[in-house]
């Protein structure tokens, strides 16, 4: 029998307000094995931990139960405290009487009763705990960054500067991401390319960084410190070592009708292309779906004009397999499809555009060379209307429930830039709320209103109707004046909601990282661990975790890098000792467990078994503790009941069930 100590935490009033902690102490003292029980204001505090320490030493406790917050919060804290007092850390169990009890029940008697039951279950379990020793696994000192936008670039540079090897995997032909598509950035209005390009160059030139563009992550296996990743380098059809980036092939390519992804389909590109002039690497790819040579077998002009002889039509996808200690996800975002909002006439008129398309129009390297003009007839607009929250803050199934966060600021930026460059253009913004939390953000928005004369109207637009004369009739409402507004506009700009990149769910599944219903990756703790995924060794950088602007993205990218560096700096990691274990006497060597193991951790060995005096040579299961992650699938699959999970054994769970149903 164990000598169990029970420690009941008040958590200030968080627990004590709804659970009678004294009563819990009184009740649990009667439980078998309990030799010590006490309550304290804050068990996790230094003084609280000192009490645990003292009790372990004075009463010779062999197991402890802490009735407190969720084990996801402080299990590690109490395990360390026990270890310091000389107790095996796995002799600690937590009864969650805060999240699962005091916070959700209002009636004191009821909550106290439940707390006692939860404590009893934990006591019943700890009575059957056995000391466990964690193993060790080596850390591969190399990080993988998935996504080569500003988030991925910054994370990679920060990790590389700390002296570790980093690989960036980017699915498009160039790094740069969404930021490379932007014209200017708020709130300082510096040119996006001017601040991004040096970062791209720095990443490319860094001796510790390897960039895989036009590549995707195909497969991930392993676990924290020891991931094995297959990277698919899609066939570029260009020899990257030979290409000089002269660009002649793109000029001469006769297939020029593919919509340019970089310019959001506002103009076209050739079949052999680099997405934009400052692309890194400055090596084109051949879009095989558009290339005449690949479609008909005739053409081959690029091969003829390439003086470096870099064109290689025979190139195939290549799989690079690499080991990593840490993985950072920086997959970024896209804007939602706005054609589903028929009232805004996006698919009916070329002059209804999204804000990201406006970025391309305003950009000197864009489809209109930076001139603000209508895409339908090339005329200079006189009246521009901006519509906010298109698809954001929607509870219908078309839009997104969240606020996209960046639209208020970039709309103020667009309005200001247009009024600055073309004072003859009237700009009207229909808004629901203007949200500008951030350093110098509200001042920026007020400048648009006060210094640049942008007309902000509180209200929404109900309909945009293309007129026979080519203009757009905007029907909106001014809620302050309580008037409906009919306004002729030459261009309408929609602040479309942003959403995580489509690919992210596939990547999250490969990494077994949690993802929410909006396809944002879930952080380990919303406040205290915002850049770590609940899956150990996986970190989050940028918009894949939630909407954010560039300064926030860069800050989070640095934070994710620090977390990755903290992991890579370790030579060894302690492995989870709660692994499966086979009872050799009961195992009949049927292989059922090996078939359900997702990690290939179970192998079979033929050995001599002494079964109650009978010596026999048998085939029995053996678990590799470094590979086993402790899911327990094998324990249930095992037909003879030989397989059990340490720390969550059959007997322990049954004891919990019994205690709860008592």
């Amino acid at each position, binding site marked *: 029998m164990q000598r169990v100590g029970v420690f009941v935490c008040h958590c200030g009033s968080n627990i004590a307000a709804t659970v009678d902690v004294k009563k819990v102490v009184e009740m649990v003292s009667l439980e078998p094995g309990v030799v010590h029980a006490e309550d304290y204001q804050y068990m996790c505090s230094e003084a609280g931990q000192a009490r645990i320490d003292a009790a372990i030493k004075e009463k010779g406790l062999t197991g402890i139960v802490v009735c407190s917050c969720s084990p996801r919060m402080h299990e590690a804290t109490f395990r360390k405290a026990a270890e310091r007092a000389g107790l095996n850390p796995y002799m600690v169990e937590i009864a969650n009487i805060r999240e699962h009890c005091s916070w959700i029940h209002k009636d004191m008697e009821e909550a106290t009763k439940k707390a006692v039951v939860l404590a009893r279950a934990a006591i019943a379990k700890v009575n059957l705990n056995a000391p466990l020793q964690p193993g060790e696994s080596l850390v591969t000192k190399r990080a993988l960054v998935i996504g080569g936008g500003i988030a991925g670039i910054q994370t990679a540079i920060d990790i590389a500067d700390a002296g570790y090897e980093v690989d960036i995997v980017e699915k498009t032909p160039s790094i740069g991401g969404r930021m490379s598509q932007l014209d200017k950035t708020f709130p300082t209005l510096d040119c996006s390319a001017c601040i991004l390009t040096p970062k791209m160059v720095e990443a490319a030139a860094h001796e510790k960084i390897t960039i895989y563009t036009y590549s995707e992550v195909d497969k991930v296996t392993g676990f924290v410190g020891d991931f094995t990743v297959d990277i698919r380098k899609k066939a570029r059809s260009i020899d990257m070592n030979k290409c000089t980036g002269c660009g002649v092939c793109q000029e001469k390519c006769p297939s020029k009708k593919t919509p340019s992804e970089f310019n959001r389909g506002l103009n076209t590109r050739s079949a052999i292309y680099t997405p934009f002039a400052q692309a890194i690497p400055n090596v084109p790819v051949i879009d095989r779906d558009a290339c005449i040579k690949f479609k008909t077998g005739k053409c081959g002009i690029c091969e003829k004009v390439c003086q470096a002889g870099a064109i290689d039509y025979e190139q195939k996808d290549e799989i690079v397999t690499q080991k990593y200690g840490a993985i950072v996800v920086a997959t970024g975002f896209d804007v939602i499809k706005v054609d589903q909002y028929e*009232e805004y006439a996006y698919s009916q008129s070329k002059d209804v555009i999204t804000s990201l398309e406006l970025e391309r129009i305003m950009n000197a390297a864009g489809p209109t060379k930076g001139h603000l003009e209508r895409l339908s007839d090339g005329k200079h607009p006189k009246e521009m209307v901006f519509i906010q*929250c298109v698809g954001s*803050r*929607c*509870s*219908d199934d078309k*839009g997104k429930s969240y606020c996209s966060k960046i639209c208020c600021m970039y709309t103020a930026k667009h309005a200001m830039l247009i009024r600055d460059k073309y004072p003859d253009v009237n700009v009207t913004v229909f808004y*629901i709320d203007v949200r500008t939390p951030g350093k110098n953000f509200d001042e920026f928005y007020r400048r648009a209103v006060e210094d640049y004369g942008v007309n902000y109207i*509180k*209200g*929404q*637009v*109900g*309909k945009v109707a293309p007129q026979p004369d080519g203009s757009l009739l905007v*029907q*909106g*409402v001014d*809620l302050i004046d*309580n008037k*409906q507004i009919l306004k002729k506009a030459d261009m309408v700009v929609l602040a479309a909601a942003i959403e995580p990149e489509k690919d992210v769910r596939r990547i999250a599944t490969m990494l077994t990282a949690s993802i929410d219903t909006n396809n944002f990756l879930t952080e380990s703790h919303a406040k205290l661990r915002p850049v770590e995924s609940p899956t150990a060794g996986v970190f989050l950088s940028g918009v894949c975790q939630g909407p954010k602007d560039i300064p926030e993205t860069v800050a989070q990218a640095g934070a994710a890098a620090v977390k990755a560096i903290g992991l890579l700096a370790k030579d060894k990691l302690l492995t989870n000792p709660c692994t499966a274990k086979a009872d050799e006497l009961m195992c009949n060597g049927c292989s059922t467990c090996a078939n359900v193991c997702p990690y290939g951790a179970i192998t079979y060995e033929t050995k001599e078994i002494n079964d109650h005096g009978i010596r026999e040579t048998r085939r029995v299961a053996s678990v590799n503790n470094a590979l086993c992650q402790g899911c327990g699938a094998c324990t249930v699959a095992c037909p003879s009941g030989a397989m059990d999970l340490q720390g969550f054994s059959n007997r322990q769970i049954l004891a919990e069930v019994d205690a709860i149903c008592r």
Partner: protein
Amino acid sequence: MSGHLHEDMKSRVIDISGASPHKCMKCGKCSASCPSFDEMDIKPHQFVSYVNNGDIEALMASKSLGKCLSCFACVERCPRDVKPGKIVDAARQMLIRQQGQAMLTPEDVPELLDPEVPQQLLMSAFRRYSR
């Protein structure tokens, strides 16, 4: 009028309409979409606050009830699924019920049955015009 009755009328409007006034984020897209906006004294986006404030009587006295075309553009375009148009419908229905006469009794229904008339129409008329 007592607060209790206010609450009662409010919950009746919500029940009849199936609208969710508490979900409104005051964007005004309903009023921006309304083809009869100029002729209304209470505007579509205000319907919602009248219900939220429990001021159903004012809504029932409003001339907007007669001006609403029940085109449901506001219902269709509302980003928060509030259904302002259904609130007008509900207010109209309560007005008709309050006016007292049962325009349609269960006894009337059999003689209205006609293979040409969809039964759904009879059902909705019955819901609307009986007491």
